[in-house]
């Protein structure tokens, strides 16, 4: 175990790029851009509502047309979901606070997730009934 690679197997002077590498990467890039476009990433359609889920279970649906603040607590972490000016974002006391950096979200498909709390907020596109709390 942990034996050093022999000179035969070790790429002593590894190549940065081979002949068809850039072509392969361009194909990957094209596929990613196409998928992004198909998902409506360039369309700029405004979202209709923010769906708040705790461990996948829908707990609230906040229309983006209406300013709102919703406290959510799970796994010992506290989040506040804010809706204003057609955008949604969160404040949290979770350890990494990555969720705060993910907002604001306004387009259908965009999400804000807080992994420590297991909470997600997803913007939906379809017109929804106002302020249904589950």
């Amino acid at each position, binding site marked *: 175990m942990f034996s050093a*690679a022999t000179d035969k197997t070790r790429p002593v002077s590894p190549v940065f*790029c081979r002949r068809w590498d850039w072509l392969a990467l361009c194909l990957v890039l094209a596929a990613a851009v196409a998928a992004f476009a198909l*998902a409506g990433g360039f369309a700029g359609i405004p979202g209709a509502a923010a769906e708040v889920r705790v*461990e996948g*279970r829908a707990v609230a649906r906040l229309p983006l047309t209406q300013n709102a603040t919703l406290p959510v607590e799970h796994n010992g972490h506290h989040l506040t979901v804010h809706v204003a000016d057609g955008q949604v974002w969160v404040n949290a006391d979770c*350890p990494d606070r990555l969720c705060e950096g993910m907002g604001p979200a306004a387009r259908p498909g965009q999400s804000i*997730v807080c992994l420590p709390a297991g909470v997600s907020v997803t913007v939906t596109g379809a017109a929804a009934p106002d302020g249904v709390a589950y």
Partner: protein
Amino acid sequence: MNASRKTALLGMLTAAAVALSFLESLLPVLPFLPPGAKAGFSNIVTMFAAGFWGPLPALTVAVLKSGFVLVTRGATAGAMSLCGGVLSTLVMWLCLKGRCSLLITGVAGAMTHNLAQLGVAIAMTQTPGLVYYLPALMLFAVAAGTVTGLLLKAVWPPLTTLADRLLGPKEKR
């Protein structure tokens, strides 16, 4: 003698991986990318370990680095780091074994890293809708992997010299 030389190299590589991962955590979160979207610059170290040394030491570096992330940044970040680090290290080792270029290996590693973390995020929040971020993550991975490959190309010769010196004469390893 032999074992302590290997431990020294392993320690040096782990320290480098931890330092790179720490530096990366200071960068601002990129908007429109899910949490855990990381450039994965510590992949430079695991990629070198995989190419120069072998899969086992490379995986050890990845696991030890995740241990540091677990202690310093909490359980969620640790789990993300472990999944992303171990899987991307395996993929990069396979790539290098298959004589892929550093560019392709770096991009494959970055893609695996981000895919694994997206998978963990989807599982932990039960939100399949996060696949919306897949295309953006792949674009990001191509850029990040290219940088990783370029950097490794630059540091490969001095790193090889250093590692060879640490490990001692070849016939004694």
